[in-house]
């Protein structure tokens, strides 16, 4: 590990990885012990530093979003220093071209990634690669029991969460062929005169020194906003930015839409929902959630989404203030708490199972048992949702970013229709009733998102449709690769980290074969 930048030196290596987050550290670890040298460049040190973090600052001109310097971690380990640890692979349908989702589809299917997903599991400190509910809940008794097959059960696994910078720091430090340079900010990717090959990186330190890195292979792994930023900043030869010959770099910015606008009132207040709450099976922490069957998504032309249950044991009015503004607004306008209580009693009168349970609640002042439904909707690829360079400069003199996050009507319709279908199935199965209310107009989502930045260097075999090819190599540049969620063309509802690690393993295999072929 090198905490101090070399001064005016040029470093020679075979592979250079830019960024020491989940993708960068996974790549570096995959290269440990290989017969080639690896340089891992990290902008920050081992701890948070506000000056380094300020390099993330930028402006938002689209949908309301978080401050850009507050959504990523710019030090060793990257954003895994903060992540919650939720892991799940993408679904089959997430890889497929869907006629109702423009620009959808990956160059390969999910089955192709499964061996890499299996290798990613232990890296994220997870259990076996098993994401159907059966192995985790053989009896099925603690799941909501639906009629028919429109609603399906899924699970996610919880990583401890793995802090990549802490857990794998020693592996990197001990590796004889890997050198990590801290406080090293890549400010430009320099190319030959045709922009067809990267020759070196220009690296600057906040203390003022600078150095260059020459390598055979360069891998960009700096996140969904910084990856396109660095490509756009690298415009010495390709004036529109490196790899941007088709004006795609920075476009298709996507983020999950997370909403807490729905509530589930069970008919039976003693319903067993243990499967839907975080729980341990052996040493593995898992949690169940609901989704729509692929046939329903296809028939209704919907985006993929997940719905998890979160107990609301407080008075709903109080819970609303804790859990979210939409619910609070609902409570304010309709006296939600009182109405819901009346609804519960009324429904219990019509249901023999529930009637005795509700009877003892009646008049007791005890709160109803409710669940908040936490919905995560994928967002559709949208070329107008994008990251561009702003005229403002950071302390290294480089243009900051401007984020223009946009959603289409498809996300709103998908959420609304999916909740209607879920409400219908919940009622049909005699499980209870569902409340939801989206705010009218374009401001229907809560501000921000869960910090999942995707799509800005999207993958496609066709250079006119993607920035990188199926091997994550930048189209038109022979030795530049991109790792991380910026290559996701579509992504479903799953949290991206497991797929980021999976793709990094796959890319590492590919780079190993390139180096091997070059050597032989």
């Amino acid at each position, binding site marked *: 590990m090198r905490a101090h930048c070399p001064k005016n030196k040029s470093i020679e290596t075979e592979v250079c990885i830019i960024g020491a987050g989940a993708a960068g550290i996974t790549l570096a670890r995959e290269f440990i012990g290989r017969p080639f040298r690896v340089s891992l460049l990290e902008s920050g040190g081992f701890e948070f530093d506000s000056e380094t973090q300020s390099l993330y600052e930028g402006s938002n001109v689209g949908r309301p979003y978080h401050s850009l310097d507050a959504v990523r971690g710019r030090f060793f380990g990257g954003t895994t220093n903060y992540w919650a640890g939720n892991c799940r692979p993408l679904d089959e349908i997430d890889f497929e071209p869907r006629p109702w989702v423009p620009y959808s589809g990956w160059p390969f299917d999910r089955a192709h990634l499964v061996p890499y997903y299996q290798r990613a599991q232990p890296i994220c400190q997870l259990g076996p690669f098993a994401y159907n509910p059966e192995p985790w809940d053989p009896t099925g008794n603690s799941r909501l029991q639906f009629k028919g097959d429109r609603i399906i059960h899924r699970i996610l696994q919880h990583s401890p969460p793995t802090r990549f910078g802490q857990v794998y720091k020693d592996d990197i430090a001990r590796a004889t062929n890997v050198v990590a340079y801290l406080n090293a900010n890549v400010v430009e990717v320099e190319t030959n005169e045709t922009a067809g090959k990267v020759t070196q990186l220009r690296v600057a330190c906040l203390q003022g020194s600078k150095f260059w890195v020459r390598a055979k292979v360069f891998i960009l792994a700096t996140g969904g906003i910084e990856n396109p930023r660095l490509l756009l900043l690298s415009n010495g030869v390709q004036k529109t930015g490196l790899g941007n010959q088709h004006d795609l770099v920075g476009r298709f910015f996507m983020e999950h839409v997370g909403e807490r606008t729905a509530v589930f009132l069970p008919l039976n207040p003693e319903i067993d929902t243990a499967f839907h709450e975080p729980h341990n099976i052996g040493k593995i922490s898992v949690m169940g959630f609901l989704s729509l069957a692929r046939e329903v998504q296809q028939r209704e032309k919907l985006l993929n989404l997940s719905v998890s249950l979160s107990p609301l044991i407080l008075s709903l009015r109080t819970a609303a203030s804790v859990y979210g503004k939409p619910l609070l607004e609902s409570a304010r306008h*309709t006296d939600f708490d009182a109405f819901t209580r009346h609804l519960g009693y*009324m429904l219990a009168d019509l249901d*023999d199972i529930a009637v005795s349970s509700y009877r003892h609640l009646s008049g007791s002042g005890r709160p109803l048992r409710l669940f908040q439904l936490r919905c995560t909707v994928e967002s559709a690829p949208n070329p107008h949702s994008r990251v561009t360079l702003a005229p403002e400069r950071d302390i290294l003199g480089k243009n900051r970013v401007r984020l223009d996050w946009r959603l289409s009507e498809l996300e709103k319709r998908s959420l609304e229709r999916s909740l209607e279908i879920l409400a219908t199935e919940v009622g049909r*199965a005699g499980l209870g009733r569902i409340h939801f209310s989206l705010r009218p107009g374009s401001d229907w989502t809560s501000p921000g998102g869960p910090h999942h930045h995707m799509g800005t260097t999207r993958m496609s075999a066709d250079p006119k449709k993607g920035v990188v090819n199926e091997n994550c190599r930048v189209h038109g540049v022979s030795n530049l690769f991109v790792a991380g969620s910026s290559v996701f063309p579509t992504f479903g509802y799953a949290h991206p980290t497991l797929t980021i690690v999976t793709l990094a393993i796959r890319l590492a295999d590919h780079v190993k074969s390139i180096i091997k072929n070059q050597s032989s």
Partner: protein
Amino acid sequence: MRILNIISRRSFLVTLGWLIPFGFMRPVHALAKLRELSRPDPLTLKLAEIFIHKDSAKIVGQAYLQSFPGEADIHFLVDLICPFQAARQSEIIKTDGMKLRELLFLQQCQDFEYGRVVKVQGWILSQTEARLCALVALL
């Protein structure tokens, strides 16, 4: 004035005496009839009796009627809830509460299955349960 000139005051009163039973009394008859009609019939009462928490059902029903004011009619609602022939309706009147609850629960589930749902204050409810509540609200 002209009529009064033609017929005497006495004959006017005699005529009035004849007219009352056939004409002027008709509104009184209609009122009685209306009162009889608006009195809940046994089927309506049977359906409303299903609720132990009548106040709760009433509040939900009032909310439903705000959204669907065109259904604010007891007989119309009963026909919507139990669109059966008279003979079938009389069977329901004789059914015990438990059995009726089972029938209605089945109908609620079928409502969801066939998309016969309504949104009341953000809650997705079956038409049957919402209309039953509306019935209670109108009684």
